[in-house]
């Protein structure tokens, strides 16, 4: 039987224990080192100290009642004082076990352990614990280790360039803005002060710039631009720290992934529990023939901060057959492709949006002349991603498609600005749907939607397929179902 890390007492004590710590710190600051001072301080702060003591005592009791048992076939965690909730996870059900070593916890030898199965509510992690290094090692030992003798030797290494490019491609101004917002809301008054001061300095600088150099661009537009560049840079740095020292090793049964500098994370993944693999690209990566290999497995990339990456960035040609045991197949020729005449179903909405932006901006300027400059700037800023989307969707028309061979289904498609090559076992297909719009009906084209199983169902869509091709795909998948039923 093990306990959680003693630091957990603070968490169990109360969510807002720090609220009581501030008056206490103020008291300590006001305290003078003389007997009368001690007496005066105690007389003033005795109630705070008493409340703090009670809260910590409560946390200590809860921590003492939180117990971890590692049995032969399962990990059991009990918590609660009066209501004893027991969670028992069989080791064979564990899809992913994660050990996280945050920099802040290193002096205390603390490790965040979590494990997830294919069940549970939405994408939540099934068991989260804060434990000592010794206990974390014991827990991680439960999950099958990669056999050194049977290790797959040809797995491509993720070098520094791969991680750097990955951080460049997968950083965004929006996620940076989210970090700033999180810092703003969670950081309390001090963080709010810092951000507000920085923003007012940014506004001052941009107004000077507007006055002196860039007179035609409104100050708000420059401020928004600088803010998003700074946010992107922040997101890039965070990603760089998160995916540096990326390391993968695997045998046929399990997979070990390690990444991160400040918050080092070690994942142990059961290969059988990988639902499907997804080779992701954006337009630049597509033109360069580079891919990011992602895997869909319960618990891996379950939190919004981490992507389920198996290989940060690699040339598609260089993947070869090394990742085949993990379900990644490179250079698959597509059996069923969209009809080029159906390009309209790919680019109709992006083109319509691209054409509508400037007239809408003009209309807005007519009604609100004071906002004319800003509306023009916003229109230009919106036009860039829309034209980009038109380029992506045009490329998607000629690169999308479906292929079925042996027991695998390969879908090449696009979702917003990303290209996906999904490789899944046929038995992981949950649902297939064919639908036709009234424009597709006369040309006998259709859209094929495929849903793949997992903790949450994933949907992939290929547009402008010929109806007979789509029917053939369904038939091929259905044939497999019949075959399976006959076997059962």
């Amino acid at each position, binding site marked *: 039987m093990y306990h959680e890390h003693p630091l957990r007492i603070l968490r169990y004590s109360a969510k807002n224990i720090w609220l009581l710590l501030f008056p206490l710190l103020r008291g300590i600051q006001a305290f003078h080192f003389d007997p009368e001072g001690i007496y005066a301080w105690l007389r003033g702060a005795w109630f705070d100290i008493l409340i703090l003591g009670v809260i910590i005592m409560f946390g200590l009791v809860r921590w003492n009642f939180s117990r971890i048992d590692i049995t032969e076939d399962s990990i059991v965690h009990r918590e609660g004082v009066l209501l004893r909730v027991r969670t028992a996870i069989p080791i064979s059900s564990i899809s992913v076990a994660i050990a996280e070593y945050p920099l802040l916890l290193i002096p205390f030898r603390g490790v965040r352990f979590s494990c997830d199965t294919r069940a549970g509510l939405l994408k939540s992690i099934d068991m989260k614990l804060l434990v000592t290094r010794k206990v974390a090692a014991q827990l991680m030992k439960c999950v099958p280790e990669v056999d050194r003798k049977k290790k797959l030797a040809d797995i491509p290494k993720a070098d520094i360039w791969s991680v750097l490019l990955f951080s460049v491609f997968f950083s965004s101004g929006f996620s940076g803005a989210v970090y700033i917002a999180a810092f703003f809301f969670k950081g309390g008054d001090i963080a709010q002060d810092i951000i507000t001061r920085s923003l007012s300095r940014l506004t001052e600088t941009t107004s000077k710039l507007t006055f002196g150099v860039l007179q035609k661009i409104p100050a708000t537009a420059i401020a928004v631009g600088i803010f998003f560049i700074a946010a992107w840079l922040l997101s890039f740095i965070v990603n760089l720290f998160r995916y540096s020292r990326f390391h993968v090793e695997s045998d046929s049964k399990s997979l070990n992934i390690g990444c991160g500098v400040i918050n080092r994370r070690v994942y142990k993944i059961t290969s059988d529990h990988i639902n499907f693999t997804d080779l992701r690209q954006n337009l630049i990566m597509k033109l360069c023939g580079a891919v990011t290999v992602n895997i869909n497995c319960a618990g891996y990339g379950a939190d919004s901060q981490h992507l389920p990456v198996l290989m940060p960035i690699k040339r598609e040609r260089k993947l070869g057959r090394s990742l085949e045991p993990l379900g990644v197949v490179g250079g698959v020729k597509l059996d069923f492709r969209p009809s080029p005449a159906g390009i309209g179903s790919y680019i109709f909405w992006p083109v319509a949006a691209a054409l509508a932006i400037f007239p809408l901006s003009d209309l807005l300027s007519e009604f609100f002349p004071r906002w004319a400059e800003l509306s023009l700037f916003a229109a230009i800023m919106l036009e860039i991603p829309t034209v980009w989307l038109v380029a992506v969707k045009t490329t998607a028309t000629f690169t999308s498609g479906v292929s079925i061979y042996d027991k695998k289904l390969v879908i090449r498609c696009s979702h917003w600005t990303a290209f996906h090559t999904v490789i899944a076992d046929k038995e992981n297909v949950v649902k297939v749907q064919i639908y036709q719009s009234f424009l597709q009906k006369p040309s006998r084209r259709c859209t094929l939607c495929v849903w793949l199983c997992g903790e949450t169902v994933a949907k992939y869509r290929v547009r402008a397929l010929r109806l007979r091709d789509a029917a053939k795909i369904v038939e091929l*998948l259905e044939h497999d179902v019949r075959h399976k039923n006959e076997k059962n």
Partner: protein
Amino acid sequence: MQQRSLSCWSTMFATRMKKTKDGRAVVLFCDDRHRFCFYRDLEDTRGIAALCFAGKAVFGALIAAGTLGLMKVSVSVYLLERFLSFLK
């Protein structure tokens, strides 16, 4: 349209509750194909029983105190009435 019955739409729908022989409720978490993955239950019901007993005791005491108080008030009112009628 073709749909398999093997897999449910979300693992959320595969979660179900069962009662054990000793009357405890166990939540069984299953994957999208309804295969058991892990369970969560209330391990020890003695705590709940103690809590219920304490609750009942407090409730009983409150009722008793209330009844006694009411009786005391009504007796006092009766005596006061008698005393006032005596004075008249």
